[in-house]
């Protein structure tokens, strides 16, 4: 068989037809994938956001924030999914835990630097006005640090949604079920399902991008 026999445009059209023919099934899988992703991001937010904000406020733990970021980046997703399976067995927790580990570093690091990087003069002024530490954080530092904080959440979300595809090998369901199963769904199915994953990731990036713009001060937006 020559290259011409497997020319891509044919497969691409087949992929679109696959999506249309199986739209209900794909939506169901997308729902599974988003459910898993949001669970992981939710848990990661609870763990990492308060911690990152507090450490940034105290200007303590720079080494921790930087290291968590470095180490977190270095963890191959497949390895985390496999470790999750070994530790938790098949079920809800093995993939959720793995994705939480992936989501925490960007959220933690960006929350830290978002708050840590606020202009010290502004913080001093707020203290001078009699605001408590808590109020300084919530009413001054957090609003000013929002762009970075939201930026970190955006990165984590895209990463988690994309990685949730691999979770299908450990029982995570989602669009990965089609992508690993070329034998049943053919190359058209694989292309179709991955187009759906790309779409989900883009959608998340776009929506969170809107949020990011909404919380960014006007002069910075031009960047």
């Amino acid at each position, binding site marked *: 068989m020559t290259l011409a026999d*497997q020319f891509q445009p044919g497969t691409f059209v087949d992929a679109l037809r696959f999506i249309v023919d199986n739209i209900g099934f794909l939506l169901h899988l997308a729902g599974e994938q988003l459910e898993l992703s949001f669970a992981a991001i939710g848990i990661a937010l609870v763990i990492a956001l308060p911690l990152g904000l507090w450490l940034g406020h105290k200007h303590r733990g720079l080494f921790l924030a930087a290291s968590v970021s*470095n180490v977190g980046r270095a*963890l*191959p997703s*497949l390895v985390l999914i496999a470790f999750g399976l070994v530790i938790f067995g098949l079920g809800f927790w093995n993939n959720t835990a793995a994705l939480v580990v992936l989501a925490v570093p960007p959220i933690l690091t960006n929350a830290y630097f978002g708050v840590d990087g606020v202009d010290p003069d502004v913080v001093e002024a707020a203290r001078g006005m009699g605001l408590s530490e808590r109020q300084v954080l919530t009413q001054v530092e957090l609003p000013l640090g929002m762009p970075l904080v939201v930026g970190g959440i955006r990165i984590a979300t895209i990463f988690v949604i*994309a990685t949730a595809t*691999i979770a299908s090998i450990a029982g995570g369901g989602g669009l990965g079920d089609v992508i690993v199963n070329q034998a049943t769904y053919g*190359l058209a199915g694989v292309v179709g399902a991955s187009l759906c*994953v*790309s779409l989900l990731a883009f959608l998340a990036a776009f929506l969170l991008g809107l949020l990011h713009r909404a919380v960014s001060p006007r002069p910075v937006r031009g960047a």
Partner: protein
Amino acid sequence: MIAASPPVIPNFGQGSPCEVNNGTFCWDWVVEHWHDTLWPALVQHIELALIAVAIGFAIAFLLALAGLRYRVLDAPIGYWADFLYTIPSLALFQLLVPFTGITVLTVEIALVSYTLLVLYRNMIDGLLAVPAEVIESARGSGFTRTQTFLRVELPLATPTIMAGVRIATVSTISIATVAATILPQGLGYPIFIALRQDVFKTEIFAAGALAVALSLTADGLLHLLERALTPWTRQVRHA
């Protein structure tokens, strides 16, 4: 089907109790299979990642030069790199097989594609961040365009570019584990085999730990390289 004399079935020995019962970590398995499984996988993984980052760097550099020179190209190149990145690696490897076969080339094409997003972005951003006054001042001192680029813009952009190389390297090492779905090479392969073998814990932990160690080591070495290349920025920098 011709009947032949029955075969001699050698005694294959027995696995240790740890191996047979799938204990959490069986050192004897690791020692026994270091040479035939773990070490070759590690070497393959390093090769795959090294080639991908090297080629990605070269391509991104050329693209950045083009994007810099002809600014109108910047957005399309950027979007193309962004799009490549969102294709799930699980899918991209499979999609390339009909074209380039079950080969290292297939894996490399995919891996290089994923590096382009970070490398291109960081190179362009780094070069664009050089203040216009600095460039003008250099031109004013008599530097040609090329000299300005090589002696002023590149060095100033180095921290950003190196940050990109670090991220690209670490993510390449990560994605290369997924290459095992089509090519039996790299540290992902023992993991997939072990998953299928009733989740053989030792092999998963051993190969996984090697992948993490490789990733951290690469990141650390590149951090040192970054500091060596930019001696004038030896203050505390956010990583």
